[in-house]
């Protein structure tokens, strides 16, 4: 059973005063298997964040099916095993790092002792052990990203969804986030993340999906696009510009292997 499955999903938006529909996703089909690290890449406005919001039941598809752990994604219980970090997270800046993580742990009904232990472990894991008593408004962007990542892991999730986790981070911050993703992979977790940073994607992903203007242009294993055949950047640029199909082109959302 796939962890996340989207079948022929269409999604449109209407601006407040307009009756015109703007299509964000056009027949998107995608399947994420257990234990893989999947990089979701695409141009700005391609529909990556919309896809993630659909997967988490924050918005609803016009047509099509979105399933999380085999259940309708709009069902609350399907999110019990999920961790999520939104893009450029605006976190509760009046809370300290410890209070912030404790609050999110409470939402999973964890007991006080478990919460204390979990908060301490997570702060250490994201390198904020000595900053836990500071309010988030005094955190740097990199620290915010790391504490945001920590809240996504507070329930020890089986499936971690990260929206642009490396966005705006310096090389050290990117390295730290990358290491956390690799650590999750080593623990057998499934990771789905969107990004613009192709070099990171090449380093840590098992598969990549390329979304252009709401359509999935390619789903490929990294082996099939790495230097021996073509770089991820080549694939990205060619598909984003609407070039003819490549060997790594998607077929109904299933990955091509070598």
């Amino acid at each position: 059973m796939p962890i996340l499955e989207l079948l022929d999903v269409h999604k449109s938006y209407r601006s407040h005063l307009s009756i015109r529909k703007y299509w964000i996703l056009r027949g998107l089909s995608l399947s994420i298997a257990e234990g893989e690290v999947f990089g979701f890449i695409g141009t700005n406005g391609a529909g990556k964040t919309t896809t993630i919001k659909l997967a988490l039941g924050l918005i609803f598809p016009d047509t099509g099916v979105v399933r999380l752990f085999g259940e309708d994604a709009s069902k609350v219980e399907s999110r019990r095993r999920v961790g999520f970090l939104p893009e450029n997270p605006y976190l509760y800046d009046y809370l300290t790092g410890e209070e912030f993580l404790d609050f999110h742990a409470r939402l999973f009904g964890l007991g006080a002792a478990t919460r204390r232990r979990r908060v301490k472990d997570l702060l250490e894991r994201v390198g904020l052990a000595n900053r836990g008593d500071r309010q988030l408004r005094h955190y740097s962007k990199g620290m915010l990203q790391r504490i945001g990542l920590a809240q996504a892991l507070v329930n020890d999730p089986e499936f971690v969804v990260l929206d642009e986790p490396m966005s705006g981070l310096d090389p050290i911050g990117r390295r730290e986030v990358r290491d956390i993703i690799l650590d999750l992979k080593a623990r057998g977790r499934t990771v789905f993340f969107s990004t613009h940073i192709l070099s990171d994607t090449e380093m840590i992903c098992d598969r990549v999906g390329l979304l252009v203007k709401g359509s999935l242009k390619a789903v490929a294993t990294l082996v099939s696009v790495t230097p021996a055949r073509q770089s991820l950047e080549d694939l990205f640029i060619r598909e984003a510009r609407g070039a003819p199909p490549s060997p790594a082109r998607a077929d109904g959302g299933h990955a091509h292997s070598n």
Partner: protein
Amino acid sequence: MLTRISAIALNTFREAIRHRILYLLLIFAVAMISFAQILSLLTVGSEEKIIKDFGLASIDVFGVLTAVFIGIGLVSREIEKRTVYTLLAKPIHRFEFVLGKYAGLSLTLLVNTTVMTAWFFLVLLIKGMFDARLGVAVLLLFFQFLLITALAVLFSCLSTPILASVMTLALYVIGHLLWSLDLLSARLSTEAGRILCRALYYVLPNLGNFDIKGEVVHGLTVAPGRLLWATLYLLLYGSAVLWTACAVFERKELQ
């Protein structure tokens, strides 16, 4: 369910008490209650009435302002700043989020009203003007704040913060003038007009149910059962408003 609602409520309360506006409103309220003593010097023989009237009015106005501005800010900001994403991506029902926010705001108002009332009663005790019925008047004002907060939460789920503030404040004013609709319906000549007036009279929040300031200040009799009726009205009307807010938020697209 209760664990999640209480976690959100506690976080909302924590946010409110770390908000500077809350303290500004409280300082203004305490200053206004104190100012009533100076104002009372300008009148002859009505010092007690002025102090009581001005004190209750200050609690009323600043309580409503807290309910509207902090209430709407706390809910709308969650949506605007997208902090709600991290919450609703967890196993939380949307109605739990709405009820948690409401409970947190109610707790904030309870603390706010208690501080204002404590100062008001202290002034009265020093002056030897304390009347236990003022406690009932303040309790009814608190019930009114709870209803206004429910409306603020509903409008926050429906609209932008500015529009939600305007609509909530408009309903506060209308809610205190609803008796005029009742009078108007009796004077209208057309049946359709009368039906419309009566319908509006019952649909709009009747905040007059929570107002016994006049009776208490002027030493008039408060109708027996007034507190019971106000409690029932709050429970029924408040529940209906919160149910609507939950239903609206359930299908809201968080863009």
